[in-house]
């Protein structure tokens, strides 16, 4: 491996960690989201987590596409690239592959990442570049004022679907897993502690990290997630995934998830002959993505909605393999000799 960064110091290019504060990551640009938008909370958590790992501002690049969420880079006092709609993963790939020392973040929306940008997303994921992708899922197009997105529910009436959506929504985590993601997680804009933890875990993961954050768009899709994320119901309607722990949830922690013999997940009450050991134990590190895939597909109201880390496994990263090829080529062929290659091939001399 060519880079001397390790997972805990990604983006320092071998320099010693520095002590910065949240404020160091706040840029001088006025934040321009609608008052009350969930984007504010996510911004705050990211700015808070950044200094925790001693990461240097100059080694961080935030790349985004287009959308409300994609204004994010302007507000980070790091390098930033507000690119074009859907293409942030491709720009980030160029950045990371050309300079593996950088800590590269992709900020994207449900339309940006899954509609126009779906293909770049899955290819960036399968290549397992060490980049962190945070998808702000508000299940709507915010910036263009309220059309449905690939995560909008069937039947939803929006500006472009006055008679209701007729496309089945995509499940972002399933898509990421099917695209061979090595780190997949989910959190919620308003669950600040959890969100911080997830951002930190994403940063620590070496390889691609895909994080879906449920984000409220209070203008065009207000309360889209309240049904299960609201303070009073979330313990009963969401489940927090913890590695190695059985899948238990509920205010009383008396319900769990079990695998039926016909390979269907079911919600069960603990007690009455059902014990913790009957439940599925969460395993982030499973070499197969089966379990993560099943969990990713649990939806309210049939199931509690899972948050946390679904999958976290190690594979070589694209940039490391690329750097390795470069280094091996230099070893085997010697460092590039321009005069040599120009003069190679079948040559002859005219006198």
């Amino acid at each position, binding site marked *: 491996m060519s880079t001397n960064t390790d997972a805990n110091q990604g983006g320092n*290019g071998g320099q010693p960690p520095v002590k910065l504060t949240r404020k160091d990551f706040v*840029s001088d*640009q006025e934040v321009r989201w609608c008052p009350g938008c969930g984007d504010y909370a996510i911004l705050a958590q990211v700015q808070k987590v950044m200094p925790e790992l001693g990461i*240097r*501002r*100059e*080694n*961080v690049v935030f*790349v985004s596409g*287009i959308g409300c969420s994609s204004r994010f*880079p*302007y507000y*980070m*006092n*790091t*390098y*930033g*690239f*507000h*690119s*074009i709609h859907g*293409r942030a993963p*491709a*720009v*980030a*790939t*160029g*950045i*990371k*592959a*050309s*300079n593996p*020392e*950088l800590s590269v973040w992709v900020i994207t929306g449900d339309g940006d990442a899954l509609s126009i940008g779906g*293909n*770049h997303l899955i*290819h960036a994921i399968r290549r397992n570049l060490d980049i962190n992708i945070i998808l702000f899922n508000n299940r709507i197009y915010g910036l263009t004022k309220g059309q449905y997105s690939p995560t909008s529910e069937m039947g939803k009436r929006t500006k472009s679907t006055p008679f209701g959506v007729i496309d089945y929504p995509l499940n972002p985590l399933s898509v990421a897993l099917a695209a061979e993601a090595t780190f997949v997680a989910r959190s919620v804009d308003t669950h600040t502690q959890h969100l911080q933890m997830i951002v930190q875990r994403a940063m620590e993961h070496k390889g691609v990290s895909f994080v879906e954050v449920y984000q409220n768009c209070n203008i065009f899709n207000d309360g889209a997630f309240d049904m299960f994320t609201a303070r009073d119901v979330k313990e009963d309607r969401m489940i927090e995934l913890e590695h190695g722990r059985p899948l238990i949830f509920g205010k009383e922690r008396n319900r769990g998830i079990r695998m039926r013999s016909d390979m269907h997940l079911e919600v069960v009450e603990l007690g009455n002959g059902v014990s913790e050991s009957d439940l599925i134990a969460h395993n982030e590190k499973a070499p197969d993505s089966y379990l993560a895939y099943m969990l990713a597909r649990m939806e309210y109201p049939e199931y509690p909605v899972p948050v946390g880390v679904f999958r976290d496994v190690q594979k070589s990263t694209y940039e490391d393999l*690329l750097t390795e090829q*470069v280094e*091996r*080529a*230099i070893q*085997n*062929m*010697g*460092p*590039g000799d*321009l*005069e040599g*290659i*120009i*003069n*190679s*091939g*079948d*040559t*002859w*001399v*005219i*006198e």
Partner: protein
Amino acid sequence: MESMTILNNVEDKHIEELESVTIRFAGDSGDGMQLTGTQFTKTSAIVGNDISTLPDFPAEIRAPAGSLPGVSGFQLNFSNHDIRTPGDEPNVLVAMNPAALKVNLADLEPGGILLVNTDAFSDNNLKKAGYGSNPLEDGSLTGYRLFKLPITTLNRAALRDEVELPPKEIDRCKNFWALGLMYWLYDRPLEPTMNWVNEKFKKKPDVVKANVTALKAGFAYAEAAEIFTTHYRVRKAAIAPGKYRNITGNEATALGFVAASVLAGRPLFYASYPITPASDILHELSMRKNFGVKTFQAEDEIAAVCAAIGASFTGNLGLTGTSGPGLALKSEALGLAVMTELPVVVVNVQRGGPSTGLPTKTEQADLLQAMFGRNGECPVAIVAPATPGDCFHMAIEAFRIATRYMLPVIYLSDGYLGNGAEPWRVPAMDELPRFEANLYKDPDNFQAYARDPQTLARPWAVPGTPGLEHRIGGLEKQDITGNVSYDPENHMHMVETRAAKVARIADDIPELEPFGEREGRLLVVGWGSTHGSITSAVEEMQGRGRSVSSVHLRHLNPFPRNLGELLGRFDRVLVPELNMGQLWLLMRAKYLVPAISFPKVKGKPFKISELTAKMEEVYED
């Protein structure tokens, strides 16, 4: 050496001197015609001829054997003087099967030498080629000097006792048999090809033996069978001394970009999605990892240009390459590169359009796309190499401009340049331009859109540099700060500034030097791959005593400074292009000159004769 003996024998026979010869080898895709042509070319180069070549591949990977779409051709022109094109009409056609005859005969000059492999003229093959009757027998070839040879049979006979190879392998040597014959006919040595065979098949002595035997057998047959009354000699050309190699435009392009990286001291990052006829650049560059070159085969052309933009942002030479349809896909992202003022180079190896068009044929019809194919006022610089060898130099030039002015540059090659080869005088290291492509480092009063007063370039400030943290993107930028700005006056100012950056390049590129007099009756203006045919045609006109000059544009945006003035010094201006008049349109709009367009969109380069005929017409008008 045996072959020397043969050669010496040859000296005794009747030899006729020729100035230049054009040969076309044609056969089925499986017949090895590209190889035959390349070997003949190299040998001719080594004996000191000037040469020019044109391969013609079938569009299908492997069309059915014997079919018309399966015909593969290779034309080469070798000469005792300066030549620039593979020749208009072949003097000699070697046709290895009926389909090859059918496809190529129309091009052979009247009375030309026609050499056919009669063994391939089976009923089945004749039918596949769409022949009702056998042209070798129905008298339809009387206008040519027809030589009917059972090449397959003769080759088998020669190899039968010499090598232990399956019949299929033996038959595969028949192209070398034909090559040997042609070597005799044009008095070329066998050694260069024998050396090549020895090297290439080092590990397969049987194959070496088979090919060498076939080659010699063909040569010996021509010598012995006395089917040719004469053979020919084409003497050395007076070529500039130096070291030469045969190089295709795509190879030269790839090498040029490697050179740019070395000269600039910045790593090269090539992001591309395969597409004919640009893929070879990807293949070439992917082997250059020991230069620190990183190649990235993206999921599509949009991802490729975006990754190149990302790489330029980090201080690499961000490069992407494609052909016409791919350039169309890159349009939106190119706008981003214009707005973010990053030094990205986009190679477009043009092919026949529109749409999927004629993927394996050449055309120059993407110039206006390169100029205007983006939303908004979105100028980029455009350069175009003139010859395969020039691809090397213009690749360097593209990055010189991109990094000096901090803007995207489109590099317009085409299928003819990309696949075509020419002998290229290898430049010495100290002939190469140096250019500075320095990263900006100074955090004091850093402004992302501050400008160099001369070039108007903004600083190349890359991630990893402390104190230069800043944000860029596709929204309109405020002058100096680079912040987002919706201000009306600023917008107009920035639109003008981006245009001015491109315009200023004109002060930094050579003025045009006409080929011929600096004023007169007719000025021919060309660009890109038509350089060879236009120059040759103009030379011919000059030989006829006509007042004709030409200029060739290698910078298309901006134009060289003195173009307008030169246009004014001639009575007539003619613009031959392999499109419907794209440079013509730009020149008319800019200089209001009543230039005449000479368009051709047939997937092929101009013939010299087409050009001279048109020049005569315009001349007299």
